[in-house]
């Protein structure tokens, strides 16, 4: 027997209030990160001991800034989604839980935005 209201069933949002949104986004960013992270690890290895000039040139070359920005977005989004689940699992009092989730999300957006800005600055000069 379905105990949900007709409206609740039609919306399909469940007790989380966003349905499978969190789950789906975690998978989507995870799948995106597979090729991006393989590319990044390869690139990072070639940058072992690189000088500032070499590193800046690499960041700004061809498709690298785009891949870096996509990597940063997928990585910070995936990371904060994962940390949210960890916080929800282990912190049981509502206040600290909410505070920590908000802090995690703000930190991810702030550091992510700063990283994207760094990529743009290294690409278009000005440093």
């Amino acid at each position: 027997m379905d105990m949900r209201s007709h409206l609740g069933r039609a919306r399909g949002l469940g007790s989380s209030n966003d349905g499978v949104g969190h789950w789906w986004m975690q998978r989507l960013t995870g799948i995106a990160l597979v090729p991006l992270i393989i590319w990044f690890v390869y690139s990072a290895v070639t940058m072992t001991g690189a000088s500032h000039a070499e590193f800046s040139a690499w960041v700004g070359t061809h498709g690298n800034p785009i891949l870096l920005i996509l990597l940063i977005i997928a990585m910070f989004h995936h990371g904060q989604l994962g940390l949210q689940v960890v916080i929800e699992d282990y912190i049981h009092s509502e206040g600290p839980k909410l505070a920590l989730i908000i802090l995690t999300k703000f930190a991810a957006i702030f550091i992510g935005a700063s990283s994207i800005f760094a990529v743009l600055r290294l690409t278009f000069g000005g440093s």
Partner: protein
Amino acid sequence: MAAQNRPLSPHLQIYKIQITSVLSITHRLTGIALAFGAFVLAYWLISATYGPEVFQTAQSLLGSWFGKLVLLGLTFSLYFHLGNGIRHLGWDFGMGFELTHVRMTGIAVVLFAAVLTVATWFAGYAVAGGV
């Protein structure tokens, strides 16, 4: 009955340690480690915008024994989380749920992570021009 007096499920210690549970918690722990690894990436990129000297400091910091230890941990965490993440995607499609398969893919993921971690560091040292 008051909410705080509800019976609790048994604590973790009473369960036998198995590859399934160990890899599950390792996935979570490596995920947390990698979230902090994202900060290392941010530091690396942002330091370069402050010019050659600040970037050089970042490079030497990452190249110090402590930096290398952190990066080694992150390398293994990354390959483990990548391999096990793909294993999770298989489960999402309903594949590989038989106990023998779960064990097999679990061992495969650990080997995958170990081998690629070693290979990546060999490549890194090759780029740097020897030990």
